[in-house]
């Protein structure tokens, strides 16, 4: 955005404003734009989810308000605004009021490091990935506030479940990203995307690969396993079915949202959908190349960028449109998978959820880290790092060997860990059954 504003004001109009004014203008513009987009994104996602889930359940879904029901979310919004705000007499009014704000604010702050297109990142932090996940975990505090302040046992149960689930699944999510960070050696989200140029093989790994913007991490065994773990963990972080235990309607009413109504409830809803959008977007960015795709790199080479200050800003716009299109297409594809899972799977039990996270996903990510180390050692390391036998290999041979070895390690690890996990679950099932039989016989006597 800085480049476009700079190009418009200084190059096209020739006003020669100082750099910090342009930076301020472009930052304020970006902030306004993002905060205007986010609610509409959320409104569209709720509409989309209701329509898609209706199709899967052989219904039609909302189709009365506006063309094909498109204005339904607006009507819902109006209802939220005009609903009475009921605060229970026993509740802690201030904490009850602050909880939705504490949940929404960090979720919005996560937009600050999400790149939308080439050269279109609100702020390119060198610790962007860490910032994203550090901020995302703050909303757990808001959920606990909501549960404690409501002074309702359903709310407290829901909040405890939500926090336990969020902290448990944060570890596999962050550890799976660690493997990708090892492949690139950077935490900047922009550089992570730039490392995914190429055609099935990243241009950074094998020089000379044609750049079609398709060198995504998902095409490496390490990235594939990391993506699977990350997507499952993202489902749990965003409280999506089959991990929607914190708001399991049939058990604990609406979890931590039980005592909320009107706009405060609306804010929880907003935070949840914006978080889902962001998690889908970050999955697309880190494993599917974000704005990378055929044509974007070619257009951006002709645009104004730090590397090419004489470019034409029209190419900035074209590359930006194409990049945003690719990113949103990938993001909505992931959101569709989330809706699909909701239509296909029943809810897990709490113990199943915790066991799956701690006993399967975390060991799997630990193996994946070793796998990433092997990948880097075979592909990048030379004599100065203590690896001599790969010295005379060609880049493509090194890539092939690294691919085969990491694929073998990951498949063996997956099968072995799945067997261990299944055996431990089966053992638990037997113990439960024995106890049940004993109690039953005791009662009958």
């Amino acid at each position, binding site marked *: 955005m800085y480049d476009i504003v700079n190009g418009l004001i200084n190059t096209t109009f020739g006003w020669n404003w100082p750099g*910090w004014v342009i*930076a301020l203008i472009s*930052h*304020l513009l970006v*902030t306004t734009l993002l905060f205007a987009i986010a609610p509409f994104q959320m409104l569209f996602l709720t509409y989309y989810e209701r329509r898609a889930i209706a199709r899967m359940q052989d219904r039609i879904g909302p189709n009365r308000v506006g063309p094909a029901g498109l204005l339904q979310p607006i009507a819902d919004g109006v209802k939220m*605004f*005009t609903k*009475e*705000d*009921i*605060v*229970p*007499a*026993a509740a802690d009014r201030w904490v009850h*009021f602050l909880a*939705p*704000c504490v949940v*929404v*604010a*960090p979720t*919005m*702050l996560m937009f*600050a490091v999400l790149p939308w297109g080439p050269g279109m990142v*609100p*702020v390119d*932090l060198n610790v962007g990935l*860490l910032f994203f996940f550090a901020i995302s975990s703050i909303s757990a505090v808001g959920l606990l506030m909501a549960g404690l302040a409501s*002074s*309702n*046992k359903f709310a*407290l149960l829901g909040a*405890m479940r939500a926090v336990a689930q969020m*902290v*448990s699944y944060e*570890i596999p999510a962050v*550890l799976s990203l*660690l493997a990708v*960070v*090892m492949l690139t*050696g950077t*935490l900047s989200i922009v550089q992570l995307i730039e490392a995914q140029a190429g055609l099935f093989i990243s241009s950074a790994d094998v020089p000379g690969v044609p750049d079609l913007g398709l060198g995504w991490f998902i095409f490496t065994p390490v990235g594939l396993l990391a993506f699977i773990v990350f997507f499952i963990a993202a489902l749990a972080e965003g409280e999506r079915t089959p991990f929607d235990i914190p708001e399991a309607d049939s058990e604990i*009413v609406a979890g931590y949202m*039980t*005592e909320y109504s*009107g*706009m405060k409830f609306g*804010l929880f809803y907003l935070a949840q959908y914006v978080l889902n959008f962001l998690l889908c977007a970050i999955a697309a960015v880190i494993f599917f190349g974000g704005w990378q795709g055929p044509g974007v790199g070619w257009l951006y080479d002709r645009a104004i960028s730090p590397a090419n200050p004489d470019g034409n800003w029209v190419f900035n716009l074209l590359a930006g449109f194409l990049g945003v299109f690719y990113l949103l297409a990938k993001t909505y594809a992931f959101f569709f998978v989330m809706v699909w899972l909701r239509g296909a799977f029943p809810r897990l039990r*709490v*113990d199943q959820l*915790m066991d799956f996270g*701690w*006993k399967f996903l975390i060991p799997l990510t630990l193996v994946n*880290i070793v796998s990433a*180390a092997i990948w*880097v*050692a075979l592909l*990048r390391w030379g004599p100065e*790092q*203590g*690896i001599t036998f790969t010295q005379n290999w060609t880049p493509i041979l090194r890539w092939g060997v690294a691919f085969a070895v990491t694929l073998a390690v990951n498949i063996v690890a997956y099968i072995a860990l799945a067997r261990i996990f299944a055996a431990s679950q089966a053992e638990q099932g037997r113990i439960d059954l024995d106890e049940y039989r004993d109690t039953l016989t005791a009662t009958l006597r």
Partner: protein
Amino acid sequence: MLANYAFIAIFFVAAVTFPLAPLVLAFFLRPKRPTPIKQSTYECGLEAIGDLRVQFKVQYYLYALAFVIFDIEVVFLYPWAVAFNQLGLYGFTAAAVFLIILTAGLIYEWRKGALEWV
């Protein structure tokens, strides 16, 4: 670099104001007719019994403890991962020892039953 964080500050102010705006707007739009029944704690048709602050299932705290250990591990591992390209075998061995100790801890926790939901 400092300018980046100045922008984060702008973003932070906007992010904090963002949820307050609809709440303030809703404050002027919505009806306010509280009654004792409406303001009672939600329960399935009964009156809520007992205090909220009761002893809670200890399992949640065990998970929280395990989380703290692993989160610190992640914080240690991230700088290592960023520098991994240049570290060489020595750096890899050092981190491998660290990982093995943590994995041993995880296995110990598992065998000890700290990860069981009872």
